């Protein structure tokens, strides 16, 4: 187990190297001079040259890359071109805001999705099942920002209940959370439904029925608990999507989170911030996925084989056939 955790943590190294390499490559192809951008159009050529030298932009890309990685190892993610502040200290407070929204969204999406999934599994092949399918598919088909606009129209413009932008009050968190959450309902519903259907056809469910358990008891105590494992495992993947969706919605709602920070940095061509933001999100996501995987091995030791051996090795032929 410890070996596995260490191995997974070591995987962070290629991810950090890879993610920063991707963005460094993108950066070198970008037209425009960052030094000119910092100083503005009024600066003289000498000032721009001096700034280029100061930022180390005249060095070969590979040197810049190695220097950057050296900084990252020491916790230095570079300085924002726009404010001159260290990227890390700009991102950390925003990370907390984004984390709140993402966690709230995952909770909303998971609760709604699991309830709908149970409902459609219990009423399989009836109109209830079809209705649930249509509802969850509806939210999968609407862009998050459209849901956001509609909710702003209803709750901010018409009813004046919730603020349209900003998170000065707790109420400001509600709309962004709901919007991000709704988009993931479909995925939870689908997984819950198929997992429930599978579990409900198991022998131990038939045994439970045979010994006279009530249907409610069977659903909640025997089926649901076993059916939740794949659902809970999918939370890790959904977190990534929630963070991506959050980027767009933070911009729509004017929430000062990491997503809006990165979007703003992209439009301002503020590369240290884009790079830092991307790296920090990649690291956070990788660690969350590791924690999710490890906690499932602790909860259900049967998963040890699938998670620990399945994740790192290519499946053998025999396994693929099975």
């Amino acid at each position, binding site marked *: 187990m410890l070996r596995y955790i260490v191995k997974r943590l070591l995987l962070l190294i290629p991810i950090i190297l890879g993610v920063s390499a991707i963005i460094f490559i993108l950066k070198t192809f970008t037209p425009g001079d960052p030094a000119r951008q910092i100083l503005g159009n009024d600066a003289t050529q000498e000032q721009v040259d001096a700034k280029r030298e100061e930022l180390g932009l005249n060095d070969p890309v590979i040197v810049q890359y190695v220097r950057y990685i050296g900084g990252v190892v020491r916790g230095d993610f570079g300085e924002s071109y726009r404010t001159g502040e260290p990227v890390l200290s700009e991102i950390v407070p925003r990370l907390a805001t984004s984390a709140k929204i993402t966690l709230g969204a995952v909770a909303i999406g998971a609760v709604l999705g699991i309830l709908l999934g149970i409902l459609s599994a219990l009423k399989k092949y009836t109109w209830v099942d079809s209705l649930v399918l249509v509802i969850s598919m509806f939210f999968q088909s609407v*862009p998050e920002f459209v849901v956001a606009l509609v909710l702003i129209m209803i709750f901010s413009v018409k009813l004046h209940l919730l603020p349209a932008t900003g998170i000065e009050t707790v109420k400001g968190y509600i709309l962004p959370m709901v919007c991000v959450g709704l988009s993931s309902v479909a995925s939870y519903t689908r997984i819950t439904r198929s997992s429930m259907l599978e579990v409900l056809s198991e022998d131990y469910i038939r045994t439970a029925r045979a010994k006279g358990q009530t249907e409610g008891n069977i659903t909640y105590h025997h089926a649901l608990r076993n059916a939740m494992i794949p659902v809970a495992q999918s939370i890790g993947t959904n977190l990534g999507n929630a*963070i991506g969706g959050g980027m767009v919605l933070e911009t729509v709602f004017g929430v000062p989170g990491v997503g809006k920070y990165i979007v703003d940095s992209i439009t301002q061509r503020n590369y240290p911030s884009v790079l830092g933001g*991307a790296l920090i999100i990649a690291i956070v996501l990788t660690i969350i996925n590791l924690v999710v995987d490890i906690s499932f091995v602790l909860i259900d030791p049967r998963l040890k084989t699938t998670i620990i051996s399945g994740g790192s090795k290519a499946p053998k032929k025999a396994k693929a056939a099975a």
Partner: protein
Amino acid sequence: MAKMHTPAMERIEKKNARRKKPVQSTPAYESWKRFKRNPTALIGLAVVIILILIAIFAPLIAPYDYQAQDYLSMMQKPSAAHLFGTDTFGRDIFSRCIYGTRYSLLIALFCTIAAFFSGGLLGIIAGYFGGKVDTIIMRIMDIFQAIPMIMMAMCIVAVLGNGIPQLVAAIMFASMPTMARNNRAAILRVRGADYIESSEAIGVGQFKMIIKHMIPNAIGIMIIYFVGFLAVSILMMSSMSYIGVGLAAPTPEWGLILNDGKAYLTNAPYMTLFPAMMIMITCFAFNLMGDGLRDAFDPRLK
């Protein structure tokens, strides 16, 4: 036992007599039969066909040019002359949405094809060869996947600039890991089959093996992913255009039309409502169809 002659039997016999050739039972035909029985999937298919027709005949359907500006009729409410109203430049929103179908469907198609030929191919190679090749490709994909898809796409657009080829490239790169993973899984499902082993034994070449034996047997699952990704790319494209890192004005892309209208949400909601409906209807149709395909090609998943 004497032959029965009930009315039902006669009907069946008549029906059989009408069939000239014996009943086909290829996997594709079986899938189509299952698809045909699924009403929601058929609705999805019908809407997709209508959208394709709208895209093809856009110049005939749209009453105005999509970029014709008319300063005498700016920000008009929906009326007989302007079905969906007009925007701040006096452009007819109905015409822009109709032309938008053309842009959105075509771009989504390009994105999906590009993603299949890059990520999909990598996945097929990884799945077929296995071992070291598989490990290397999938580890690289893991690195790509560490960045959320839409963020990756936005970074690429920021570098390449706003435009259709740039957007296609961005969505292609961003979706590579997902595509690779899906196609690898599809290939792995047929990888261990007996007929693959037999073909290997009689010395079928690797290229022929992939093209002639594995892809045709995995194609059903690949089509499911293909249709599903059409919806995903329309959503990504419009989200990116909406926050300003996608296509550039005056392209009549739905996300951009929405972006034009967002400042007037309170007094002119029709400016955002109609393009939003177009996105919704399109993605909904693709998702319905994709779901029907899933049931049709892979009944075990149901």
